[in-house]
């Protein structure tokens, strides 16, 4: 028996260590890092792990942006070259691959990751090496707190969590909510906290809070416990892999409440896992591909033509992050890391596909969010409404329906074409709701 336990402990340590096996992925061809050749930009993401659709979209979005920039003559006459590394969706691997990008490939800047836990693991490496890192879509506030070389082009979780809380309380008229969060992700923990804060502030009650761990297969125990308390809505701030199954199991238990989530749901895989169970369900997201604004439709068309799939919000954000970086390199007039960092952090009113990007003092983009309704029958997200952060007034005043662009805006004094888009989106929203009412 003693031998047996000895063996058991040996086995355990081997199993644990196997999780950290480093299978160095191959990278693109490495050219010498000079001031005249191609500008090398490191990109890392998960293209093979549990959130692989995130990494794939990010890689595609950046590729599209780089191709467009290079076709137009590059940045200051130099071409942008992407060096991609797969981190398999784990924080440990994220740290390893960013070290490789920074120390071995000598990239001038890094774009990535999607999942906040992975960005948090990698950011200190970029900060230490003084290489600017722009995360396209990590929304946990802690990511940019790592240091002044880390910035992002998306909004942050306090806003995203409150968007869904507002939607639940104001639009869905929910009084009670239950939360089922992913205990192993910083993203999920952040959203849980901020959703709860805002929902309680708006007079709602959180009657049940449960957690699961990533890779769990069975959620019926948590859901059964929620069922008795009959919450009006269930908030599931997780990633698509688990969410699809949670939705399915909730419906199997006869729970027909609206399910609410965040941008972590945005993946073509979600429809395969959840199917018809994903209705009624709503998510907060960065942009809607249905937006008729020409910049967005041009991007959607170009992306679709190149990759034969509709761009999700992660692809759009990645595209924007690459464009922001290129813009900053142009303004910094070179790739000197300190100057480049300052140029990135000084980004103001950059017209991106996902909205106007202005970085605030904590290097977070302050942008509006959209609420999308899931439409499993067509495997797509339908636009529902736009929600603006506090201090950022919607482009149209509620009293007038004119498309005026003269408007007090706390974020910027100059309005650009993007506020027009929001106008169109707003009228769209009214149209949608009337149509829904007619049904």
């Amino acid at each position, binding site marked *: 028996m003693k031998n047996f336990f000895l*063996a058991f402990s040996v086995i355990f340590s081997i199993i644990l260590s196997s999780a950290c*096996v480093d299978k160095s992925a191959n990278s693109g061809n490495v050219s010498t890092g000079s001031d005249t050749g191609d500008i090398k930009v490191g990109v890392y993401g998960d293209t093979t792990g549990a959130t692989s659709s995130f990494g794939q979209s990010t890689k595609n979005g950046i590729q599209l942006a780089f191709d467009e920039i290079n076709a137009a003559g590059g940045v200051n006459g130099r071409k942008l070259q992407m060096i991609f590394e797969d981190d398999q969706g784990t924080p440990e691997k994220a740290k390893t691959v960013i070290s490789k990008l920074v120390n071995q490939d000598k990239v001038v800047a890094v774009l990535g990751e999607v999942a906040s836990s992975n960005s948090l693991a990698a950011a200190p490496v970029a900060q230490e090496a003084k290489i600017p890192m722009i995360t396209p879509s990590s929304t946990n506030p802690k990511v940019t707190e790592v240091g002044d070389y880390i910035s992002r082009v998306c909004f942050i979780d306090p806003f995203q969590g409150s968007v869904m809380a507002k939607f639940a309380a104001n639009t869905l008229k929910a009084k009670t909510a239950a939360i089922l969060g992913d205990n192993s992700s910083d993203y999920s923990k952040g959203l849980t906290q901020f959703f709860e804060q805002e929902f309680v502030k708006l007079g709602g009650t959180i009657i049940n809070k449960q957690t699961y761990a990533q890779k769990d*297969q*069975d959620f019926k*125990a948590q859901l*059964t416990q929620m069922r008795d308390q009959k919450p009006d809505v269930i908030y599931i701030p997780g990633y698509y892999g688990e969410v699809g*199954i949670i939705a399915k199991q909730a419906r199997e238990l006869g729970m027909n409440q609206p399910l609410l989530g965040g941008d972590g749901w945005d993946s073509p895989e979600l429809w*395969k896992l959840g199917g018809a169970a994903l209705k009624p369900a709503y998510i907060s997201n960065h942009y809607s591909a249905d937006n008729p604004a020409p910049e967005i439709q041009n991007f959607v068309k170009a992306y679709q033509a190149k990759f034969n799939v509709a761009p999700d919000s992660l692809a759009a954000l990645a595209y924007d992050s690459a464009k922001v970086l290129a813009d900053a390199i142009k303004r910094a007039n070179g790739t000197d890391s300190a100057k480049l960092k300052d140029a990135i952090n000084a980004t103001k009113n950059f017209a991106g596909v996902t909205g106007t990007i202005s970085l605030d003092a904590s290097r977070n983009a302050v942008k509006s969010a959209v609420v999308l309704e899931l439409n499993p029958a067509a495997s797509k997200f339908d636009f529902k409404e736009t929600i603006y952060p506090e201090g950022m007034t919607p482009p149209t005043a509620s009293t007038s329906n004119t498309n005026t662009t003269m408007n007090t805006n706390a974020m910027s004094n100059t309005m650009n074409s993007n506020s027009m888009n929001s106008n169109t989106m707003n009228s769209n929203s009214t149209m949608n709701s009337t149509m829904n009412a007619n049904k």
Partner: protein
Amino acid sequence: MDTFVQQLINGLTIGSIYALIALGYTMVYGILRLINFAHGDIYMVGAYAGFMLAVVLGFDANPSVFGFAVTLLGAMAIAAALGMAIERFAYRPVRKFSKMTTLITAIGMSLLIEYLFIFFFEPKPRSFPPLISNENHTLFGNATISTSQILIFVVSIFLMIALQYIIFYTKIGKAMRAVSFNLNSAKLMGINTDFVIAFTFALGSALAAAGGVLTAQYNPKIDPLMGVMYGLKAFVAAVLGGIGNIPGAVLGGLVIGAAETLVVGYGGYIGIPSTYRDAVAFAILIIVLLVRPAGLLGSNVQEKV
């Protein structure tokens, strides 16, 4: 009350899967005194085999009981062949050396299968196509049971009865019992022990594969590392029930499955958050082993030194 019944149904569903996997651990241990650590991965291979069969044969397009049965049996056959191959090429050559050698080989085998699958099938999760139309059936009050859950219960009970029949009422079963009693004496009595061992591996692997297909049907997400945690829990279940003891493995599986579900359901009232569900399985194991070192149904056999 209906909530408790619902939780129990949820728990017993996972418990049945644990039990199916645990049977393989316990049978191999009973015969070879070997913990076959690759067994959890056979469960994963079973799910993947089912996935490929369903897609290749086109059962994913129109769900039917026939399609499900073919997928299930096909996956079981593939896994059985794999189990026999592993035994023949990995374990048999090292069987004459110390038990530790075989054990380490088993760990190596486990990692090999996992990473071969990651290499060839990508580590990303895949969604298993629905093979039967899944509906909800109300038992009473709020307690419901889905078709895939009923399927798990029916198939696993059937397989367990079939296993019991094979072991106690067939010639090969008698040989298995003889080999597990004493391998060398069995050999002296003219039993082809190599064949009996290979058969045991095939049987255990087929059960694990059935578990894999049933789980994939219930929770339609499969990935190459899905067998790690299930394998570990099933191993705990086998030890809990008394390793080497077949009814013990079933009991252990059901106890672990029910316990971890009830922890999520009711742990909150006694201060155990739902995140600790995995820890509970191992805590139960430690407590039971402290009180009954041979497991719930195991008989205390003196170790031969």
